[in-house]
């Protein structure tokens, strides 16, 4: 059993290719889920791998390195469409967690209540994956396939998240509902990106909901219905929420979650519109 902390992606992939290796970065999900008795195989620490950290504007969009911390996102200078992502970054656990937890870790952990997923869905995120066969990109919707399940093949790891350049007038927002002020695991959460034309009609709409289905979901019917409408005219009907399948658990009933989501969408959209 060994602890590896390589400095190049090539070395990291080499170690990963040996199998039985667990990737660790911020540790914020790794340790809480570690079984008694400690890790069973080698650990691969990717936080020293060159190029996995940081936020950069690239041709046609933005790249966030896999091992970028949530606090880096919260403090980054980003277009307003990223406001929802930045707000979510400030809600991932407490500051201690935000200083350690990474964006890719939040995706790979694939919790239904992952705070990063809804805002990244609203930004059209793609996941860049490196593996024995080179690199590939997968839409975030297709990357997380179920509770604690992601589309990573053996020997593969996430290296970055890419987002297209959002419309210049678009603004994002994020609403998270819980029973206390900090350290909240969501009862439900909503991320939106909203763009409007000069006459106030919606010309860009992204709405995603977390903690109300095994994997956070966008609401395409609602997004479609929003185009061309004014915010104040918008009505959310049950069909818009069809992708959601909230469960009853200790945090709240499924019926409550659905009802809360409608309210949260309205609040998130108003926040995106009015700041």
């Amino acid at each position, binding site marked *: 059993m060994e602890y590896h*902390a390589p400095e190049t992606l090539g070395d990291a992939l080499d170690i990963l290719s040996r199998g039985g290796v667990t990737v660790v970065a911020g540790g*914020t999900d790794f*340790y809480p889920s570690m079984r008694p008795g400690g890790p069973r195989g080698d650990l691969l620490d990717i936080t020293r791998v060159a190029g996995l950290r940081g936020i950069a504007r690239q041709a046609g969009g933005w790249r966030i390195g896999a091992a970028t911390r949530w606090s880096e996102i919260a403090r980054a200078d980003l277009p307003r469409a990223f406001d929802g992502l930045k707000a979510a970054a400030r809600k991932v656990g407490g500051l*201690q967690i935000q200083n350690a937890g990474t964006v890719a870790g939040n995706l790979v952990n694939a919790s239904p209540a992952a705070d990063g997923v809804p805002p990244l869905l609203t930004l059209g995120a793609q996941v860049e994956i490196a593996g024995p066969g080179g690199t590939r990109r997968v839409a975030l919707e297709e990357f997380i396939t179920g509770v604690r399940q992601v589309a990573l093949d053996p020997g593969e790891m996430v290296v970055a998240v890419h987002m297209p350049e959002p419309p210049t007038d678009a603004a994002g927002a994020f609403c998270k509902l819980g029973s206390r002020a900090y350290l909240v695991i969501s009862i439900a959460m909503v991320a939106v990106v909203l763009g409007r034309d000069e006459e106030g009609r919606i010309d860009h709409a992204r709405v995603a909901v977390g903690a109300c289905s095994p994997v956070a979901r966008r609401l395409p019917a609602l997004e479609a219905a929003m185009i061309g409408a004014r915010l104040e005219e918008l009505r959310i009907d049950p069909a818009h929420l069809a992708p959601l399948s909230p469960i009853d658990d*200790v*945090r709240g*009933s499924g019926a409550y979650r659905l009802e809360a989501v409608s309210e949260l969408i309205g609040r998130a959209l108003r926040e995106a519109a009015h700041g």
Partner: protein
Amino acid sequence: MDKRLGMTSFRLNGTEVEILPRPGERLSEALRDRLGARDVKVGCNAGDCGACTVLVDGAPVCSCLMPAQQAAGKTVETLAGLVAGEPLARELGRRFEGQGAAQCGICTPGMMVSAVALLREVPEPDERQVMDALGGVLCRCTGYRKIIDAVMGHAPGAVVDAQGHTRAAIEKLDGRRKVDGTEQFGDDVAPADALVIRVVRSPHAHARFTLGDLDGFARAEGLDAVLTARDVPGLNLYGTIPGFIDQPVFAEGVARFRGEAVAAVVGAPDVVARFDPERFPVTWEPLEDAQTIPEAMAPGAPLLHEGRDGNVMCGGFVAHGDVEAALERADVVLEGRFETSFVEHAYIEPEAGFAQVVDGRVEVHACTQAPVMDLDTLETVLGMDRSRIRVVPTATGGGFGSKLDVSVQPYLAIAALKAGRPVRIAYERTESMQSTTKRHPADMTVRIGAGRDGRISGLRFDGLFNTGAYSSWGPTVANRVPVHASGPYRVADYRAEAKGIHTHCPPSGAFRGFGVPQAAVAQESLFDELADTLRIDRLEFRILNALENGVPTVCGQVFEQGVGIKACLEALRPAWEAERAEAARVNAAGGPVRRGVGVAAGWYGCGNTSLPNPSTIKAGVRGDGQLVLHQGAADIGQGANTVIAQIFATALGVPVTALELVGGDTDVTPDAGKTSASRQTFVTGNAARLAGEAMRAEILQRANAGPEAEIVLREAGIEVRDGDRVQVIDLAALEPDAEGYVLRVAETYDPPTKPLDENGQGVPYAQFGYAAHLCVLDVDTRLGTVKPFKFVAAHDVGHAVNPLLIEGQVEGGIAQGLGMALMEEYLPGRTENLHDYLIPTIGDMPPVETLIIEEPDAHGPYGAKGLGEHVLIPTAPAILNAIRDATGVQMQRLPVTPSRLRAALKEAGG
């Protein structure tokens, strides 16, 4: 990181260090166990509590979530290093002391380290910035407000007072070590070579089990020992109440709750770190379980204990007057049913300690609320004469009732005796939550009648309390509730019955209030409905019915002085009127957010119910003139070390700073009883007063001085100034005793109570304390969320020994009451950690205005009364009443989660 050697080097508090961690080792483990940085506290190992916060390259992180190897090449700073090296941190420590922002001190390193990171960046933060910076650190004692004050640099609450006698709001006498990282809690005292114990627990609520080849397993794993019931040298049972000693140290053949201990492994740290309980040779056969009161009382339900038919553990009963006749003649009678949940104590320090055998005697060093009760239990469990057992309490990182029971102590003692080497144990957060006691879930039905004049006419209470698999303090709850379920009111016709029901759940035991907070929820909620029905102001209704001096309680007890509830309620009048008017104004604007104001009251009898509970305080003067106070009242953060010392110093007539404090080591300090039932200020405080008076009398007699003489302790001797005459008692001329004392006193106090008869009539307590809370909150009716933003709390403490510590108790109690009302629900198997089980964070606690009322008690020291439980009894009902005020909805089940409140609002047509 040096890849060839696997060594990790980094800069720790300014010094280069190098370690060889095992893969998977947490930075917190490396810091504490390899590098001696035990100022880093571990509360959950999951990033849920923030106690282990350190700065890595200046940024606060949870060291429990960081692989130790990741520190390579970085700078790591802990509280002790910051305080030693950075003026900002030292100043912050002084501010924490000045505000009383550290109670037990277990969260203080996490709080202060996080705050230092903030203050480096933002020297004068606003409240929101402080909350954002500290939102990831949980505190269970303070209610956070004093921490906010400290970080913001507000004027200190403490005063500088040369004498430090009673009524002086001095800083805690033991406060410094809580803010500089030197305080030693249960997991901070073991020698480096101690073996480690890990307990193997039942994954089932009810199961038969068979153990396999334990010796073979121990050999294969490299363990030093495996312990089971066969290794318990004495009686494999413990408990707290005679006749109810029913909980095994290790279950024998059948486990009765999820988390019950069946075995323990003992081995070297690295061996135990690799231990996986799933490999342990045990075969489980799950059995039908009953986890709720209805399930446990159903015909044919599995019986938990022979002889307790229907799973009824025991009951308590109080009757006064003729309740049915009074309800019959009442103009209005209302009935309500209320349910509460299991509540977890959630102190940030999990149970921990170490033990060793010294000269054939076993020494147990552990966190505790009751060192002598621990010794009592060890005596029977070990089958050893008590002269061969020593219990040394460590600092205790919060207790709130649960650390009255033993937890780690039997395992430590048995393992130390078996292994012949020092052993240590620290519970993981999940096993702490699974295996230690809880607040009883209650199912209560209350009927209350009143006349048109607003006078109560009959109150009947029937409560069932889920007492879990074993008795613990369940009988106390069953007895206490009927005595208190009237609330602090004049109720001439009364009948109350409470029963403890066994279930396959963790034992319910002592938790701040012993069942009284649950009963207050039912009675105080129904009072609001009654007042509204009668069209009487809700506060005035309470004032009208408030108990008074000379009026019998429901137990027929009459107090000639000290019944302070009316004064508490009247003290809330200005806030009640102003906040109600403001709420009406705010609500007139309409909108989905509705404001509400609620009041509720409570009372609590201090000390054991109709049973002796003496405390003894010993003090001595050494030959060098040093005065030593043996203060055995366990200080679990509430401040007994300070309060008892203040009382003793007042009685003796010396400055409190003259005292050297010795703690509750059972070898040197007499029994001051348990820190429980709000009894320490009252009972041990009285023993301290008597001891101080006795020492004063002896000194004055030796100097032949009058009662007004002044005593000055000097190295050369004790100076006694009586008017112009100055006498010096030459200490060198006195023969020191075995402990080196040339003067010594020991005094005992036991509150005067009388047994209750078959109707619960008698003198259950020598003293009651009284309280009334007002809560202002907003309800977001669309989401069902509740946001309290102000409390006003009036407490009759008889005589305010230390007003700063009183505020600390009140604010901390309100935070726990708020959690109980709005978010806390322990469900075995589902909320066994601090991210699924929610306690209030720094952003949930609004400011509290504490109003101190002093209606002197006939028995308390200088009239002082207990306070520890009173502080949360009115909180939850005040919140429920405010929710009802805001929305018209009476919530009858705790906690009032957003989901439950929204459902209730919908049902009400909202």
